[in-house]
């Protein structure tokens, strides 16, 4: 499993595709976490189930936790859930790449 993260529109999906042309790519993973949350699932358990089902996948997500703490409880919970889920993925992944302006920085 590999993980590509970055702020909105930083080119993480393009880089993930370029570097892993034959891999299964699960993009917009932050939205998948939000949907899981709305279904009442635990974020960590959801991430673990994705790791178990797709151990060779490339996960692509936006970093969403580095802004002003939102006033709405639901929005706060969403940001935190994405963080918790991506911690699970990052621990499972053998490679983590953070993308800024299209440039990948390997942090694991």
């Amino acid at each position: 499993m590999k993980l590509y993260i970055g702020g909105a529109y930083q080119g993480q999906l393009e880089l993930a595709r370029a570097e892993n042309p034959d891999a299964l790519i699960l993009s917009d993973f932050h939205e998948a976490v939000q949907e899981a949350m709305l279904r009442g699932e635990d974020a960590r358990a959801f991430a673990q189930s994705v790791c178990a089902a797709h151990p060779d996948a490339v996960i692509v997500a936006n970093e969403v936790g580095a802004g002003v703490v939102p006033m709405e409880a639901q929005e706060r919970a969403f940001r935190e859930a994405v963080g918790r889920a991506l911690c699970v993925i990052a621990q499972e992944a053998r490679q983590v790449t953070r993308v800024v302006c299209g440039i990948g920085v390997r942090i694991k």
Partner: protein
Amino acid sequence: MIVLVTGGSGCGKSTWAERLIASMPEGQRVYIATMQVYDEESVRRVARHRAQRAHLGFATIECEKNLAAADIPQDSVVLLEDLVNLAANEMFSGGDVRRIVPALHDLAHRCRHLVMVTNDVFSDGGCYDESTQEYLRALAQINRSAAALADCVVEVVYSIPVSLKGALPCV
């Protein structure tokens, strides 16, 4: 050693900061808790953090404001969590945000090791009302002062520590 740990929401910075404290030599461990507990969410958050650090033998000192007045034993190993709450409490609950940086300097001299946790809340590009902007400016200045004071600054990115200043401590 003085360490500043930053990162976004839910990135695992508290867990990493606790592991860092656990890797440090023996000394009286002090946890400076800054969060105002006023609703169910904050009660849950405090309970989660307490459970997370239960095995580390911290003495907890509650300090919502006025860090300089907190009774921190000399030569202790201190985890201050976090600057975001401390700044918000000083600014919005009748304190003085300007006293945080001098108090951090005093604390750094007093204790053997100091680990400060803060939060990256600056990268969403949103426009906010004037009081929030004022808070962001104040917190950014505190973070920069804390980083200048620290031997190491570490950003935790989804559980992975990334060094921004100094050698990454082994945890």
